[in-house]
């Protein structure tokens, strides 16, 4: 069954407008559990309560307070918040197009497909083809359902446009460049060995080869338990850290190459 579009808008690039429909690209596959009261397995509800006395506070009486500093916050009334909502005009403004690696992966938040709107098929596929020839992503801003979004516009190998929303500058934490001290700096020889090892297990990104095994095992476990089976519990055991790096790398390489010589040799 075809998905329903969550929103309609126009991509705006300079003088051109390309009408598009937006679709969520993710589908939830998580195993869902109910939270129950341990006493008699009553399903629990969530309530918003006053922290001091535990009394429930109805939705109409709930307010939001914006923190100003360490000492104070200001309560903002619903009508004040509404008044601060941005104007919605259905325009998805393309601000700039940058090389793909100009944006680190940690910025990507939530993916959406963009599909052609009935009246704009020709423009949609023209833009997809134009973008495919550039190896760039577009940085876009728009207002959807009274909220502002920033996103990255890209085209897939399949010829469809995608928009991935981006995190805000303040959300993405920065770390200093790391230069480890001498004792923790690998030698050139060790790096060379590591490169060979990495090369030996390098391949294309093949997401279809990866399955959520835990999810599958959890389903099995639940089935078994539902039938009344007694479960055997197993706990995890931590691994030892590698001490002799060069030796371990050599052993890994031989193992990767399937060399019999490395087999049975105690390393790491």
């Amino acid at each position, binding site marked *: 069954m075809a998905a329903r579009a969550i929103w309609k808008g126009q991509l705006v690039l300079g003088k051109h407008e390309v009408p598009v429909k937006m679709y969520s690209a993710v589908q939830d596959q998580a195993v869902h559990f109910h939270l129950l009261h341990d006493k008699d397995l009553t399903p629990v509800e969530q309530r918003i309560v006053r922290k001091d006395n535990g009394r429930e506070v109805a939705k109409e009486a709930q307010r939001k307070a914006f923190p100003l500093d360490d000492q104070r916050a*200001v309560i903002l009334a619903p009508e004040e918040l509404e008044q601060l909502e941005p104007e919605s005009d259905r325009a998805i403004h393309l601000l700039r*197009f940058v090389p793909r690696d100009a944006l680190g992966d940690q910025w990507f938040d939530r993916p959406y*497909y963009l599909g052609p709107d009935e009246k704009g098929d020709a423009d949609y596929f023209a833009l997809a083809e134009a973008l495919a020839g550039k190896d760039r992503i577009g940085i876009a801003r728009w207002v959807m359902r009274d909220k502002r979004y920033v996103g990255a516009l890209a085209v897939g190998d399949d010829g469809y446009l995608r928009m991935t929303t981006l995190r805000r500058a303040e959300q993405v934490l920065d770390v200093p460049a790391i230069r480890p001290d001498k004792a923790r700096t690998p030698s050139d020889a060790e790096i060379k060995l590591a490169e060979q090892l*990495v090369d030996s297990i390098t391949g294309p990104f093949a*997401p279809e080869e990866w399955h959520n095994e835990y999810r599958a095992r959890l389903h099995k476990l*639940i089935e078994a338990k539902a039938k009344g089976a007694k479960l055997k*519990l197993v706990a*995890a055991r931590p691994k030892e850290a590698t001490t002799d790096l060069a030796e*371990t790398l050599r052993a890994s390489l031989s193992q990767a190459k399937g060399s019999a010589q490395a087999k049975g040799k105690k390393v790491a």
Partner: protein
Amino acid sequence: MRSFWSGTITFGLVSIPVDLFAAVVPRQKSMKLVDEEGHPLGRRYWCPKHEKVLDDDELVRGYETDSGKVVVVTDEEFASAAPEKSRDIELRRFVALDDIPPFYFDRPYFLAPDERAGKAYALLAQTMAKTGKAGIGSFVMRDHEYLVAIVSDQGMLRAEVLRYVDELRTPEAVGLPKPAKPDAARVRALAREIDALAEAKVDPAELADLEAETLRAFAEKKAKSGEGVVSMAELEGDEDDAAASAQVIDLMQVLRESLGASAGKAKRAADAHAAAKKPAAKKAAATKTTAKKTRHTVGR
């Protein structure tokens, strides 16, 4: 230690003990929930039958089977489903980082070396940086399995949680129409528009949180009138925010202990982040620092 997860990255026979920390924090515009008089509110679990608020240790998780039977799964049973995966991230494959479409990236975490990691941590970071590759593996944390790409960024390893392929819809499933061959003149016209907007870098100002800025400006103006001002002291105890800033400080501590050399720089960053997380008077200064640093790290 307040890391989310501690375990081992393995590639080949090399194992690297690491701790996992948050690499992203909630948006600044997130507000505190209060009632009309400003009393702090919280979300609590409520048992409708016993008519009482429940603590976490009074809750169990139950799965409803197709036949309507409820099966309770204990914490030990959750842990038992894939014990080896709860300790290790085995990198079974390396791929070119550019091969992973933006669509797959879900959530990033920093991986800090454990003190016992020795040279192996830097070895993996430097090898991946040099080759432009990411290591792919999966692990279990808090009763969920995560597919991750381990990437190297300025000597630091990051675990990028990836979506599983069945968590992403296909264009066919969405029902997108078959691609039509576009008119060449239209393609050229749109290509020219793209060229006109082409830049080498992202402008961090374009990634700023305009909603948070608007809210702050309005809240500050309203505060001057004195109306609706409540004491933050009463509102403290927002566990999430406190945990996120504690984590940043912890990460820097870990780096200092396990890497020595970059201690000075790491400390400054920790202070800036701690201040940036606190909605304090120092905010303006701290935000400025963050914005400036972000400029260097928007790319990869």
